[in-house]
């Protein structure tokens, strides 16, 4: 149990650092940045308290906000993702979730990708809506959501697969 806690604390810190030091400055084609810190929220243990997940996600988002001077947009988006996570899990894993027996390290890749895709699009849409904060720029919001989501999804899936296979 203690070991699991340490893993998650290390994951929290590493993902936060990679996000703010590397990923926030990629700016591929001028504006595409992957937001990989949400992997932490995806992989948070399912049996843990939901209240804890909400609080930790909020803290994680707030720290990213602090580093990128963006008010509270990451905090809000991460919080929404954490709140919506049970629904996402249910739609993408179905029965497995009901039995609380999902292990992210050895699920089907297809279901994992569905789960991450829905979660990422939700998170990014809220993120860019709040960041741009202007309904007349809806096209810009959708464009940023689409392209950043693609980069986040690819990176997240790769990272999850790479690091979970190692442990076997």
């Amino acid at each position, binding site marked *: 149990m203690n070991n699991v806690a340490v893993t998650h604390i290390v994951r929290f810190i590493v993902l936060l650092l990679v996000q703010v030091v590397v990923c926030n400055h990629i*700016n591929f084609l*001028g504006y595409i940045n992957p937001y990989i810190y949400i992997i932490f929220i995806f992989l948070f243990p399912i049996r843990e308290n939901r209240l804890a997940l*909400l609080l930790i996600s909020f803290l994680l988002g707030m720290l990213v906000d602090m580093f990128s*001077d963006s008010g509270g*947009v990451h905090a809000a988006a991460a*919080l929404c993702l954490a709140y919506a996570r049970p629904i996402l899990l249910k739609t993408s894993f179905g029965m497995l979730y009901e039995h609380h027996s999902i292990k992210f390290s050895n699920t089907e890749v297809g279901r994992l990708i569905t789960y991450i895709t829905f979660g990422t699009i939700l998170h990014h849409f809220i993120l860019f809506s709040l*960041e741009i904060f202007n309904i007349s720029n809806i096209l810009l919001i959708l464009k940023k959501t689409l392209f950043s989501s693609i980069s986040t999804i690819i990176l997240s899936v790769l990272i999850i697969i790479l690091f979970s296979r190692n442990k076997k």
Partner: protein
Amino acid sequence: MQQIFNFVIKNKTFLLFLLLFSIALALTIQSHSYHRSKFINSANGLTGGIYGTFNSAGQYFNLKDENAILAEENKFLREQLLNSISTKDSSYVDTSYSKGKYRISTAQVYKNSYSLTNNYLTINKGKNDSIKEDFGVITSKGILGIINNTSNNYSTVLSILNKKSSINAMLKSTDHMGSLKWNGDSPHFAQLDDVSKFAPVKVGDTIITGGQSVIFPKGINIGVIESFETDIGGDTYTIQVKLFNDMTNVGTVYILENRDRAEIKMLENSTNE
């Protein structure tokens, strides 16, 4: 009473979500409406320290570029020096510097962003180096932004690539004033609004700072006119300005402090009353 407790316990997840979400939303709205993001900003020891650590490693990759920029600036300064000795053309030399009205200090950029709609930079000078809010920040090529928040050792700079930024600027050739803003599109272009339609605007003309505020002296380079169009009302031009500064690649910056700032502010306040 019992029912209220039951309700709270039953919906505790949703209520916590609502509480945290309203905090986040409040911070977001606050950051969109005011010039200073009071609570959450990167001018503090934690973020500054982490950016500093990684910046000192990353610096080496830019040494070549930095060198080229420095050499170019040296060339420009040397040219100015030699020409001022030979011709004494006082209209060209910026007298506000020679009077010692501005105190200049240098700083390193620790974080730069240009892909968001409200961009900020973090630099490694703060209150301990007597940097205060509303000081101007420039690079050797042109204008960069205004100091926004300060902590003991770090400050954030409200970049000109920020929807909240508005800077007094003018045409170099004719002194027609306007305000420099950014529409959030490209980091290489800014927009000069409210230029009188009687101004002789030409593509390729230089735009400089206007010197009407106490932040920037008159005559700091901003960019050249790329294109222009008349407003919907037809009374003013909106000019697309190509910035001299490459906002995506900023290393060393200069911070300008107007020594007469307090005096001017006091005078303005007493006039307003």
